[in-house]
């Protein structure tokens, strides 16, 4: 289980991040000031640290300096949009930089990127009799390999990583295609239909009207 340390002085934001992490099954631990955050980071073994910049006691940059030795990847969270701040954070060794306010899925997407980079995400995901080997780019259904286009593969992997979450077309577009698609959500629909057909997910990968799609998890009925 992935465990993430949240160092954020606003209680509600920390709570929100923790709740967001819990929907993909990551566990979150909250610390509300720089000093105790830095101590916790050195003490515990975390896969990732989400670090606010404006913190009491010690600011985010100072925390970053003091926890460098533990090698845990860090994503900065900040309300500042200053480029100089961003550069400073990244130069200190942060993996990424998220500007508040952010959507839940954007946070998760950024976390996934960082975790994948540090090889902390699971390489294979099993979903019923479906197995996705992300490293080798192979998907098998009941032991038989299924031919998918690279984009179709990315789509199903994204759903597998975000089970039980309503994914909007826009989110899927920016996650799989990597850019903001204007008025081309048909592309998403076509890929989702292909995935459904090829993998027999008609009942599981459901359409949510006006919103997008959701892959129901195996244990839900």
């Amino acid at each position, binding site marked *: 289980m992935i465990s993430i340390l949240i160092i954020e*002085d*606003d*209680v*509600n*934001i920390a*709570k*929100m*991040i923790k*709740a*967001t992490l819990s*929907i993909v099954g990551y566990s979150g631990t909250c610390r*509300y000031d720089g000093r105790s955050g830095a101590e916790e980071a050195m003490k515990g073994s975390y896969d990732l640290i989400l670090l606010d910049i*404006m913190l*009491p006691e010690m600011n985010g940059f100072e925390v970053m300096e003091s926890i460098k030795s533990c090698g845990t990847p860090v994503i900065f969270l900040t*309300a*500042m*949009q200053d480029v100089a701040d961003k550069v400073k954070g990244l130069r200190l060794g942060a993996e990424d930089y998220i500007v*508040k*306010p*952010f*959507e*839940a*899925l954007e*946070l998760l997407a950024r976390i996934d990127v960082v975790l994948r980079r540090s090889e902390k995400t699971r390489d294979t995901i099993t979903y019923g009799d479906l197995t996705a080997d992300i490293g080798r780019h192979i998907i098998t259904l009941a032991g038989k390999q299924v031919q998918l286009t690279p984009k179709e593969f990315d789509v199903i992997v994204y759903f597998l990583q975000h089970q*039980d*979450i*309503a*994914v909007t077309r826009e989110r899927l577009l920016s996650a799989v295609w990597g850019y903001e698609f204007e008025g081309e959500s048909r592309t998403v629909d076509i890929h989702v239909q292909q995935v459904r057909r090829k993998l027999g997910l008609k009942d599981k990968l459901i359409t949510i009207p006006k*919103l997008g799609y*959701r892959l*129901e998890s195996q244990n*839900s009925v």
Partner: protein
Amino acid sequence: MKLWQNIFLSSLLLMILTINIVSAAVLSSSHKMLLEREQAHAVNEYEFFAASFSNAVIYERLRADEVILSEEQVASTAKELFFGPDNDTAHAAVFSASDRRLVAGSGFDELMELGEVQDHISGYSPDPDTCQIRIFTLGKSRIMTVTSAMTVEGRDYIVITALDVSDIYAMRDRQRDFVRKVSIISAAIVSLILLVTVIILLRPLSRLNIYTKAIAGGNYKIRIRKKGSIEFRELSGNMNAMADSIQRNAARLEKTAEDRQTFIANLAHEMKTPLTSILGFGDLLRIKKNVSDSERMEYAGVIVEETKRLRSLSGKLMELVALGGTETEMEPVALRDIFRDLEAAFAPQLSKNGLTLYTSSEEITVMADQELLISLLSNLIENAVKASSEGKRIALNARHNGDGRVLISVADEGIGMSQEAVEKVFQPFYMVDKSRSRKAGGAGLGLALCEKIASVHGAELSVTSEIGKGTTVSLLMKEVEPS
């Protein structure tokens, strides 16, 4: 044109002009003197010739032993006289006075060709007592003539003698040329000396110029060293004073801009923090498949709480903005009435928190905008409530300060704050304890707003505090004299 060029050229011109005028005066007076001498010389010569002529005619008549000489005889006598051994250089002519006919002449042929000379002779009215002196220009030479009438042996004659005075004129021209040259050279030398002097004198000016340029270029820190003449020292002093004032103003403007920048940055931060929670929890409610009742209550609760925070922030902001823009309506306000209203307004909140508010006011009236004054005092009481724990007291007092002002104070027995915090407490968005303030729905704008209201009223706001003992906020404002 530059100043030194100006001074150089004008002094050069002035010098040349002066030297020329002076020398022209000197030259003309010396020329006149020489001319007078020549005139005397010419008159002598004339008299000598006239006497010779008269003697020769008389002598000839005696020799010829005649009563009267014929005109021919006179003419030949005159010719003899002209060409005689004594008078080889004589330039003279004798005319008969009656018909202006030339009786005899020597060295006068060229002169006679001049119309002027002819007019002179024909227009001459004979007068034996005076002699007329004229100067004629003949080619390059000047000829001075002396003309007079004389009677010899009963006949009237006009006699003219001529004297070449070219030398005098030539000398005058030579002298004039010399003076001209000398004037130009000496003027050039003097001007050059002047130029060097001026450049040396104006050197502080170029130094001032460099400094002024530096100041104009934005380097407000430099100051000019006071050097040179009194005028330059005074100018340097004034320029330094100017630089001082520019530096002060620039610093003030910079500070204002910086404050505004900080304000906006803080505002953005204060808005984004609640927005992050609202967006995050809203998104969770939207995308999560199964949301339990307790989760939904929690998420929605946070959204409502944070939205309230934003509402309070925007309300305070609007008040701040409105304060800057609108006219305030000052009217006499009785503090006792206001205190009574405040007591009533805060009663529910106070009883909920288990606090007691004591108010006391003398009979005091102040000039104020009632709405704003209430808003200011409400903010202070609210702060006191936030800082106080159950069972504590809050005191709202007003009394004469003795100097025509009223001291209104709000004192609590709450948690108090450090000296460091007291200094920052009027800064917008400053919160002594962020999490506490946020829980109480504060945006960190309350005291900034109070200070603004105080300044609109020309009042002073001050804070004293001690950790664990409480905080007192005092407002000193002008009192209306009871009429």
